C-alpha cells in the first residue's frame, strides 16, 4: 500500500518537475550559483516559515539525483552502528509560478544498511532515545525510507501566505534474531505568513504540527534461544517489569512549533526565533494486545539565529551570524503495580532529562565576481550536553567547543562547465567533563555505557570535502557529479571515513 502510494507521488513530482520551464534566460554558472547560494544555506532556519519561500530563489530549478554513500566508523556510539551503505534517489523542484506564487516540492527514496547496531532495535533515535527496545546481540539494520514534501507561497498585497506539507515513511528490519520490524510515519504541516513592514523589511510568523508514529515488533526465528529484550529508560537503566515480557511497542509523538521571522527583502539581514513543544509517548504491548504506557518524553526546544551581511564593495561581502539552540527532553516513567487484581498504573515519576545548549558565532566573507565565488565562514561553537537519570544519580555532563571553517569555491570554467569545491575543517575539543557515570549490575550494559562514555569525551578533528562538476547538455539543462569525502581523526587514533558519490540532472 505504502509502496503503491509512494510510486504515485514520485511520478507526480517528476511530472511537476518536467513541467518546470528550463532556465534559458540564465547561464549555467548563474543557475548553479543560485542553487548553491551559501547565504541561503546559512539562513536555512529562516525558511522554516513557508511564506519566506517566496524569496527562496528568483529562478525556477529542479534536480534529480542518485546518491551512494559509504560510511565506516572505528569510533561510534553502539546504538548507531559502525558502518552504513546508503543508496538514495531524490528529486526536488522550486518553481516561480508567477510574481506572487511559488511552488516547491521534493521526494526521495533511501535504502540504508547499517552494520553492527547494538543495544537498539528501533529507528529515529533522535526522536525516541533513550526509551528504545534494546538487546545485547545487535546486527545489521535495513531501512527503506520515503520522503515527500510540497508547499506553496502566495503573495497578497503586503501579506504572503505559505504552507508546506511533508510526509516521511520508513520501514526498518533485521534479518537475524532478534528481528525487529519498525514502521514509521511522520507527517508535518506548517503554515506561515509574512507582512511587508516597508520596502526593506518583512515580519513573519509560522506554526506547525507534527504527528509521528513508530510501531515496533520484535520476533525470533529460533525456538530454542531468545535474547533478552530490555525496555530502556536511560543511561543503562531499564523497565524491570516489562523487559522480557513485551516484544512490541508503539511510539507516538505530537509536536507543535512556532517561528518568528524578521528579514530584509534583500536577504542581507534576518532574524529567526522559535520554540517547539513535543510529547512522545511509549506504549508497550503485552500478549493479548494489552498496551501499557511506560514512558513519556516531553521535548522543548528554543532557537534563535540572527544574520547580518554588509556589502563592502560590489564584489566583497562581510557578515556575521549568531546561533542559539537549546533542547530539553524530560523523561517520565510510569510505574505499575501487580499487587492488585490486574496490572494497574501506580504513579508517574520524572526520572530523566537530556538537554543540549549551543551557542554558535560565525564570521562570513564572500567574494563574488562574474565567474567566481569564494566564500569563507570561520566559526566557533560551544555545546553543553547534560544527561541525567535521577534515581541512579547518573550524569553525563560534557562541554565542548567546536572551532572550524567552512569554505566554498565556485568557478565558471566555460559556458558549459562549472566547478565547485566545498570544504569544512573543524575540531571538537572537550573543555569540561563533570560526569558521574553510574554503572549497572549488567556487564553487557556497562560495556555499552563505558564505550559511549569514552567516545563522548574523546576529542576529534574533522575534514569534510566535496567536489562538484556541472556540465551543460542543452540550454537550461545540465548534469552534475559530486564526490565527497569526510574524514574524522579521533584522539584515540581511530578514524571514521565517509565517501559519497552523486550523479544528477538539474534543469
Amino acid at each position, binding site marked *: 500500500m505504502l509502496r503503491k502510494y509512494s510510486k504515485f507521488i514520485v511520478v507526480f513530482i517528476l511530472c511537476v518537475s518536467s513541467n518546470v520551464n528550463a532556465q534559458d534566460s540564465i547561464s549555467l554558472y548563474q543557475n548553479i550559483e543560485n542553487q548553491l547560494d551559501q547565504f541561503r544555506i546559512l539562513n536555512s532556519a529562516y525558511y522554516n516559515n513557508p511564506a519566506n519561500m517566496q524569496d527562496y530563489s528568483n529562478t525556477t530549478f529542479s534536480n534529480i539525483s542518485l546518491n551512494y554513500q559509504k560510511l565506516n566508523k572505528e569510533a561510534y556510539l553502539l546504538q548507531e552502528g559502525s558502518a552504513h551503505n546508503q543508496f538514495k534517489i531524490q528529486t526536488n523542484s522550486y518553481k516561480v509560478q508567477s510574481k506572487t506564487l511559488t511552488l516547491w516540492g521534493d521526494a526521495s527514496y533511501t535504502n540504508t544498511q547499517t552494520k553492527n547496531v547494538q543495544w537498539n532495535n528501533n529507528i529515529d533515535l533522535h526522536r525516541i532515545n533513550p526509551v528504545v527496545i534494546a538487546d545485547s546481540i545487535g546486527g545489521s539494520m535495513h531501512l527503506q525510507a520515503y520522503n515527500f514534501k510540497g508547499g506553496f507561497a502566495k503573495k497578497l498585497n503586503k501579506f504572503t501566505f505559505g504552507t508546506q506539507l511533508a510526509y516521511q515513511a520508513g520501514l526498518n528490519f533485521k534479518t537475524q534474531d532478534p528481528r525487529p520490524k519498525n514502521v514509521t510515519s511522520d507527517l508535518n504541516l506548517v503554515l506561515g*505568513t509574512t507582512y511587508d513592514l516597508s520596502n526593506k523589511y518583512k515580519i513573519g510568523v509560522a*506554526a506547525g504540527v507534527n504527528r509521528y508514529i513508530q510501531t515496533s515488533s520484535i520476533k525470533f526465528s529460533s525456538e530454542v534461544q531468545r535474547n*533478552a529484550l530490555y525496555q530502556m529508560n536511560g543511561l543503562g537503566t531499564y523497565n*524491570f517489569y516489562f*523487559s*522480557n*515480557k513485551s516484544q512490541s511497542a508503539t511510539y507516538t509523538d505530537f509536536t507543535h512549533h512556532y517561528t518568528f521571522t524578521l528579514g530584509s527583502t534583500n536577504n542581507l539581514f534576518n532574524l529567526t526565533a522559535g520554540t517547539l513543544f513535543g510529547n512522545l509517548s511509549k506504549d508497550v504491548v503485552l500478549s*493479548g494486545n494489552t498496551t501499557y504506557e511506560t514512558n513519556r518524553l516531553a521535548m522543548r526546544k528554543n532557537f534563535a539565529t540572527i544574520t547580518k551581511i554588509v556589502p563592502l564593495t560590489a564584489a566583497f561581502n562581510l557578515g556575521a551570524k549568531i546561533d542559539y539552540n537549546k533542547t530539553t527532553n524530560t523523561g517520565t516513567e510510569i510505574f505499575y503495580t501487580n*499487587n492488585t487484581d490486574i496490572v494497574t498504573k501506580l504513579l*508517574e515519576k520524572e526520572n530523566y532529562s537530556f538537554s543540549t545548549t549551543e551557542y554558535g558565532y560565525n564570521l562570513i566573507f564572500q567574494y563574488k565576481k562574474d565567474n567566481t565565488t569564494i566564500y569563507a565562514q570561520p566559526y566557533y561553537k560551544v555545546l553543553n550536553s547534560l544527561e541525567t537519570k535521577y534515581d541512579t544519580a547518573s550524569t553525563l555532563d560534557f562541554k565542548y567547543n567546536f572551532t572550524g571553517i567552512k569554505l566554498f569555491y565556485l568557478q565558471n570554467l566555460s559556458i558549459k562547465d562549472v566547478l565547485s569545491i566545498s570544504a569544512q575543517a573543524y575540531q571538537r575539543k572537550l573543555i569540561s567533563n563533570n560526569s558521574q557515570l553510574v554503572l549497572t549490575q549488567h556487564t553487557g550494559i556497562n560495556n555499552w555505557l563505558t564505550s559511549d562514555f569514552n567516545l563522548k569525551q574523546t576529542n576529534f578533528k574533522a575534514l569534510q570535502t566535496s567536489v562538484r562538476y556541472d556540465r551543460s547538455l542543452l540550454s537550461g539543462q545540465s548534469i552534475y557529479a559530486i564526490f565527497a569525502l569526510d574524514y574524522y581523526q579521533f584522539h584515540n587514533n581511530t578514524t571514521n571515513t565517509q565517501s559519497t558519490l552523486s550523479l544528477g540532472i538539474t534543469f
Partner: protein
Amino acid sequence: MRTKFLFLFLAIMGLTLTTVSCNNDDNTNAIVDNTPAKVTLTFNGDNIAKISKMTVEFKETNTGIVTVKEVTETPFEVELRKGSYTATANGKVILTTEEELEAAGNATFDLNTDAQNLNIKLMIKAFSEDFIIEEVFFTGVRTTEGKAYNSGKYFKLTNNTNKVLNTGGLLITKSEFTPSLKYDISPEIRQQAFAVNGVLMIPTNIGKDVQPGDFIVIADMAMNHTTPNNPSYDLSKADYEFPNLDNPSLGQVDNPAVPDAKVIYTTMNFNMFFLNNRGLESYAIARFPEGETVETWLANYKYDYEYPNQAGNITQKSVYKIPNEWIIDGVNCAVPATWLHNSLSASIDSGYTASGVIDSDNERFGKTVRRKIIGTMENGKPLYKDTNNSDVDFVKTSPSSFANGIVH
C-alpha cells in the same frame, strides 16, 4: 478569490492551534519526585516474641532496584523511593518460649505516599531430618553445532542427616507458577501448600537405603549423554530415571537396568515431566503422610484457582497442591532479571537461585544450581548448607558435579 484564500488559510491555522491547545487537556496525572518515602517496618508471627536479627530485601518491581536493610529492632524506619515493592525477610527470631529460631517472610506493597507502615508476617523455617535437594540440572546443553539438547537433566538428592534414609515414597514436584509472571491468584494458598503442575514419585517397592552424606540421582534418562558433539553428562549410573516413552518426538529411551520413577501427575501432554530450561519454576521434595496414597491425594488435593488476566477476563485453572507440612525440602529457581515472586512459602525457601543472569542467558547451558558445602560429616562426606534460603544456600550457575560421571 483573494478573500476566499485568506479565509481558508486562517481556518486551517485556527484548526491547527485548536488541535494544539486541546492536546494536553487529558494529562491529569500527578508526577511524583524521587524523594524517598518513609516506611515503618514491623514483624509479627505465631509465637514470635521479637526479632533477633533480620535481613530485609526490598525489590522495586518497575526498576529492579534492590535495597537491603539489616534490622535488629522494631519498629524500624527505612527510606525507599516510591514504587511497587516485594519485601523478603530472612533472619532469626526469639519465640515466646525464648527459643531462637530461623524465620522468614515476605510481603508486597505499593509505596505511593510519603509515609507508610509495613508489617511482614514471619514463618518459622521448617527443617526436616530427610533428603535435601543438592543439585538440579534443568538447563540442558548446547551441542558443538549450537543446537539445543534438552535431555540429560537430573535431580540430585542428598542425605544431609546422620541417619540412613530410604527413597521409597519420595515425591519430586515442580511448581505451577513461574517466578516471572505474577497474577492476583485466588485463592492464594502459598502459606499452606505448594501448587504443582507435575509430580514424580519413587514408588516404595523400588525404594533404597541411602547412607548419611550419600546421594541419589533421578535423571530423565539414565544413560551416557556425552558424545563428541554433545558436552553433556554421563548419567548411566543414575539411581532412577523418568524417560517419557509416550511422546515419540522426544526420542527418549528406557534403560531397563535402572528403575523408573513414576509421573503420578502432570499438566503436560503425553504425561511428560519436563524441566523448564530457563529454570522458571520451583522444585520441592515431599513425602505423603501415613495413610495418604496417590489415589487419595488425587481425590482430595485439587487446587482450583483463578486470576484476572490482561484482557480483563478471568482465567480459571485447575492443578494439584502439596501441603507445606509434607514438603521436606524445596528450592525456588528463577531468572534474576525477571524475578517477581517465589512459588514456595518463605518457611521452605525464602530466596531463589538461578542458572544464568538474564532471560534466555546463553551462559546457563550445561550449568546447574548446586548447594554449597559448609563442612564435612563424621564419615568424610560433604555437609551442605541448609538455611531454607536458596539465595545463600546454593551456588548459582554452578558447574555440574557430574563432569566425570556419577561418582559416589
